[in-house]
């Protein structure tokens, strides 16, 4: 894994195929280890009703278990309610229940029968007498609370009726009703727009063939396309003006009264809409020390006639 490989660059997310410097360590993103040779079960809370357990049992331990209890074993997770128990030892839980699992699943979402409790789980097997034997024990998880506490505070007491009103003002009915995050909101708006757009394929893939966009204006071609389809015969035409040229790369270039940026080799190109009428386009270049200048003026006229 730690060869200094000069490898191909991973394609994901990149838009570059050129690399500025010699890069030796853009290693191919390899898959992560399947296992870490641990015997372990870990519990995480997801919300007041569910927690998530993942586990791993190393081969040596598996062999020992098979030697002791046989080949065709049934695996279980034992879920203990350990609320308010200081030194949980496997025998002093408030209560417990078992879930039959497939060991190879390697993880499990556990639905809990009660909210506002603390839980711990054992991964284990049942022997021929149906007795549960622990392989490994998890951490203890205090679940997130759900619902308003029944406990009031003498010093900060509040009447039940007032408190209900306050909960309402605090937006208690909105809890969990949806999130306020940008990514979600924007995705939803995008989906809505696409659902009602005339040409749902438009933009939905990032790479839109540019041939669709024959229109040079700000009115994109798909709007026009829709208009023209309704007619039997049509002609649409418009015109634009392109001004281009080159000067010394360090010169200052003005088109009209505005300074215009030159490319590194002194070229410039400006494209503009050409409306009916006469247009003056003065182009002026001034040398970097300000001592020399040249000017070219275009006068362009457009007149449009429509004939049936």
């Amino acid at each position, binding site marked *: 894994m730690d060869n200094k490989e000069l490898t191909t660059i991973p394609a994901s997310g990149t838009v570059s195929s050129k690399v500025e410097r010699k890069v030796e360590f853009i290693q191919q993103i390899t898959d992560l280890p399947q296992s870490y040779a641990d015997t372990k079960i870990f519990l995480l809370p997801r919300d007041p009703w569910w927690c998530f357990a993942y586990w791993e049992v190393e081969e040596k331990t598996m062999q020992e278990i098979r030697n002791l209890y046989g080949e065709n074993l049934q695996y279980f997770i034992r879920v203990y309610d350990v609320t308010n128990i200081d030194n949980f030892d496997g025998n002093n839980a408030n209560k417990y229940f078992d879930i039959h699992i497939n060991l190879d699943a390697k993880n499990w979402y556990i639905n809990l029968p009660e909210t506002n409790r603390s839980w711990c789980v054992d991964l284990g097997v049942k022997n021929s007498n149906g007795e549960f034997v622990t392989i490994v024990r998890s951490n203890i998880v205090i679940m*997130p609370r759900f619902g308003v506490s029944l406990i009031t505070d003498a010093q900060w007491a509040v009447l039940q009726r007032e408190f209900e009103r306050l909960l309402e003002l605090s937006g208690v009915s909105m809890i969990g009703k949806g999130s306020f995050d940008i990514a979600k909101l924007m995705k939803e708006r995008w989906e809505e727009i696409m659902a009602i757009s005339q040409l749902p394929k438009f933009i939905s893939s990032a790479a839109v063939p540019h041939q669709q966009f024959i229109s040079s204006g700000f009115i994109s071609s798909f709007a026009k396309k829709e208009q023209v389809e309704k007619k039997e015969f049509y002609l649409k035409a418009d015109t634009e003006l392109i001004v281009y040229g080159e000067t010394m790369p360090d010169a200052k270039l003005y088109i009209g009264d505005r300074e215009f940026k030159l490319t590194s080799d002194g070229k410039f190109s400006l494209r503009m809409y050409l409306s009916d009428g006469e247009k003056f386009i003065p182009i002026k270049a001034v040398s970097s020390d300000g001592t020399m200048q040249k000017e070219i003026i275009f006068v362009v006229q457009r007149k449009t006639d429509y004939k049936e």
Partner: protein
Amino acid sequence: MVEGYWCLVLHNHLPFVKHPEYEDFLEEDWFYEAITETYIPIISILEGLLNDNVDFRITMSLTPPLCNMMEDKLLQDRYYKKLSKLIELAEKEVWRLQGQEPFFSTAKMYEYKFKNVMQVYERYNRNLLNAYKNLLNTAKVEIITCNATHGFLPLMSSDRIRKAQIKTAVKDYEIKFGRKPKGIWLAECAYSYGIDKILKECGLQYFFVEAHGILYGEPRPKYGVFAPVYTPNGVAVFARDIETAHQVWSADVGYPGDPDYREFYRDVGYDLEYEYIKPYLHIDGIRRNIGIKYYRVTGRVGLDKKEPYVPQWALNKAAQHAGNFMFNREHQIRYLKNIFDREPIVVSMYDAELFGHWWFEGPDFINFLFRKIHYDQNIFKAILPTEYLDKYPKNQILQPTSSSWGDKGYFEVWLNGCNDWIYKHLHKCEELMCQAVDVYHQDVLSGDEFKKRVLNQLTRELFLAQSSDWAFIMTTQTMVEYAHRRTKEHISNFLRLFYQLKENRVDTNFLSWLEFKNSIFKDIDYTVFI
């Protein structure tokens, strides 16, 4: 005498995305777009308020990854180039659209805005932290930190790991702002039991939670979400007001969906002729958003039915919405004052990127709102969390519930079938990190500088892998491939470096490469794990 207070909190965050190994990298755009559309527009507005002596207060979290990106020379220069190109396009657009209203006005608006962004950017020597430092000195703006790489604290394997994230954040803040942070934004507002103890130990005075963090706390909160409480460890907690969140976010009644506001999804990157727009696309030439948009939301219509954007209409609407928002706060606060025996505080928390990036007129809304609050009413004032705590140092003590501000209010966004596979690996790295520190710290104390470098880079790789952004992106199903890649990349970097350290065969070139590439936290200190 005012009847209550309003506290605006903007959370500024982006994951650390920097790819020196590519000359052009798509995901770096997140940062560049946010500077152009959100960070600098908001800085400009706050500076304008200061110049005009408008009394205002705003609390902003600037996460360590964001601060580190703002300070990064490579990203600074890349942004400069990017913005220069954008200005060039805006200038061309002004030419192209001469005489064509309302497009011409919109084009001129972009040209003006982008040039203003450049002016601010240059004024602060391309390092926006300089701007935030100035704002912080005014005492009208409070800047708080966020745990190191925006890691999702409740799903980490131990308090030792959580503490390392928080200590690193506090230290980074001190280096950047020259004083200790007073408050912290917990990434995703994700709180679980015990985190308050760590905050206390790190000298942090307050943090924020989603509404039910306090509403479902124990015992019952006397003032609901309209007053802070103290956790059993003595840290103040402010909870989010849902009404103000809803007013902005709701798909039906929220402000950003107004027909006059700018439509995010109609962009010149798709609309204009290919050869014309190509120089402004990424070098792969694929059409993408560029940031110049000429259409307004219009209504619930398809993209082809959108009508032209009229800057003045949009600005008028932002002023109108600011007036409406203020009116609603006056009512809310007056009502609460009537039933309380003290002045309530209404805390409105938003992602900063909402303002400007998605809701283009959002910064104008904030501008109008603060001016109206200052000039047009005397029911309430804007306030900073510490100012409110100074007024009301005595507060109820309660245990907030574990919660987050994500969908459904708990941890499911970061723990579901799309992303649950990451925790086994993250937890393993967390375990090995502690092991490495326990074993090799003595060597470093005896002067082994090389091991110190290795331990520091292990810390960076672990922190970067822990960013909650990757799990979040996996859930939202946008740019998933990148999130997978980053998670795997940092975990495999970590493991590879760890085993090289363990087997005493660290490849110096590999270490240097990682230091160069994943360069977050220049002054990182692995002893945060001790």
